């Protein structure tokens, strides 16, 4: 996942996402739906793919390209849990802790991840900027407890013992 986006709530000027190849990809996407609004979720996914998160400035740009208001876009962004509204670690780790995984030891997996990544707390990013760990509701792989999602990589049957080896794959 690219995390090189320059947009910030500071001095660096905002660079539009939807230029060049990204604009072409967006135009192709719009062809799938009878309304521009319907392309909102996939458009936000494109922003997150490029920038690692969805900033306020990006929401304004998305509103412009889809002919919506920034407030409307923010209303949608905040409804869904997978759009990051602030920068996160290079590797964003989601751990399922819903009951079926809870019954199989998910809590210990979370504890171990928080410890071994150096994140300390849920939602906090490790000091080296490498990891952010959060608990999520059912990832839909309950027979393979405990599943985790590291960016777009789905890993099944994680145990506390496997955590160090898994983390070593993500530099």
């Amino acid at each position, binding site marked *: 996942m690219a995390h090189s986006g320059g947009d910030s709530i500071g001095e660096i000027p905002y660079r539009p996402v939807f230029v060049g190849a990204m604009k072409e990809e967006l135009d192709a996407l719009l062809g*799938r739906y*009878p*309304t521009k*609004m*319907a*392309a*909102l*979720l*996939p458009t*936000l*996914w494109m922003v997150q793919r490029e920038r690692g998160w969805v900033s306020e400035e990006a929401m304004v740009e998305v509103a412009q390209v*889809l002919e*919506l208001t920034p407030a409307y876009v923010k*209303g*949608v962004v905040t*409804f*869904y*849990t*997978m*759009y990051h509204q602030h920068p996160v670690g290079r590797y964003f780790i*989601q751990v399922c*802790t*819903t*009951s*079926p995984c*809870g*019954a*199989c*030891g998910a809590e*210990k997996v979370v504890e171990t991840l928080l410890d071994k990544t150096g994140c300390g707390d849920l939602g906090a990013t490790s000091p080296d900027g490498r990891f952010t760990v959060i608990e*999520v*509701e*059912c*990832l*839909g*792989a*309950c*027979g*393979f*407890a405990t599943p985790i*999602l590291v960016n*777009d*990589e*789905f890993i099944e049957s994680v145990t506390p013992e496997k955590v160090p080896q898994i983390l070593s794959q993500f530099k």
Partner: protein
Amino acid sequence: MGYPHKTHPKETPILSKYFGEPQARTLEGWKQRGGYRALQQALGMTPADIVNVVKESGLRGRGGAGFPTGSKWSFMKPGDGKAHYLCVNADESEPGTFKDREIMRWTPHALLEGTAIAAYAIGAEVAYIYIRGEFTEPLRVMEAAVKEAYDAGILGKNAMGSGQRIDVHVHRGAGAYICGEETALMNSLEGRRGNPRIKPPFPAVAGLFGQPTTINNVETLAAVPHILNNGAAWYKALCLSNPKSTGSKLFSVCGNVSRPGNYEVTMGFPFKDFLYDLCGGPLPGRKFKAVIPGGSSVPIQTMEEAEGTLMDYEGFVAKGTMLGSGGVIIFDDSQCMVKHIARFARFYAHESCAQCTQCREGTAWTTKILERIEAGGGTMQDFDTLLELADNMTGKTICVLSDSCAAPVVSGIQKFKHEFEAHITGKRCPYRATAAA
């Protein structure tokens, strides 16, 4: 071939026959296994004839509600001059359920073929497959399969040379359990917050983009090609108990059990054999204590109830619960039921879209009370409060999310009241010391 376990001799592997077989994922591999014959056949039939075959087969929705699929399709009136849409519900998020994930991962073309047949049968030129955002691998596999199908002329303006336009697009969700509710899914697809809509109007009248829409679950559509290939009578004959429940059904099994995974059995299969034979029974030295057989939204069963159940829509109802999505969650004697019921309540509180007061407030209050009981701070009055809350959360909201939160609470208090009482009188969780590591 099974996944992750080998197919058990008592299974009926129809949908799951090629799970675990990577070659079945490709268009070429799928065609070698008889793929797209059913679509070819369907495109030579009238839509009404297809609907009749599906009606005759007895196929019912596999997403949870069990509505007869052919009847649902017949609500779409041909020649009304409107754009029709098909939505495929691949937002599988019901705790305990992971069957659609395996269908998409291993047999993406089975879903595409069923989708194309359904689209044609309901007069839709466009279908959207709405896949939950966390299903990164199924998304990749489905997108690759869609591309293959377009490149081969199976989908597109002239599907398989029939002159019929069938476009199928994969649409990625972004993390919201409620988007599995059909009208919330449509709102989400339209680029809105995933709030369920008040019905009526029903989707067949005014659904996606305000147009007549049918929405089907992944497993339902994956069964359709088999019905066309083998005939309605063949499908109808797959029945071990009540004739209103036909065909095979995938059950996802998780929790404290020897062999978690997906199993496909004929409707009406004995639950006892399923739990102890197919799934291998409890973990060594443990005993099963409770089962939630149809995803977290259905009432909890005691083992006595579960062991007398026949696995079909009517069989689960007869034993105080529902077939639901077929997500079987098993808890053994090391587990604290209060803790798990509280955790389910927390799930629903987190996933409430917050439109309806009864749900927004009810799920949150229920969670707080249950967590307080679990932590040792409960009182005997909490039972009345919880049951009154549950009553106010049942049948009084736009969708059934709050009902789903209430179901495990009410059934949990009914069937495992002694565990709640032990927490209250002992002022602590009696399972803390022995909880599984």
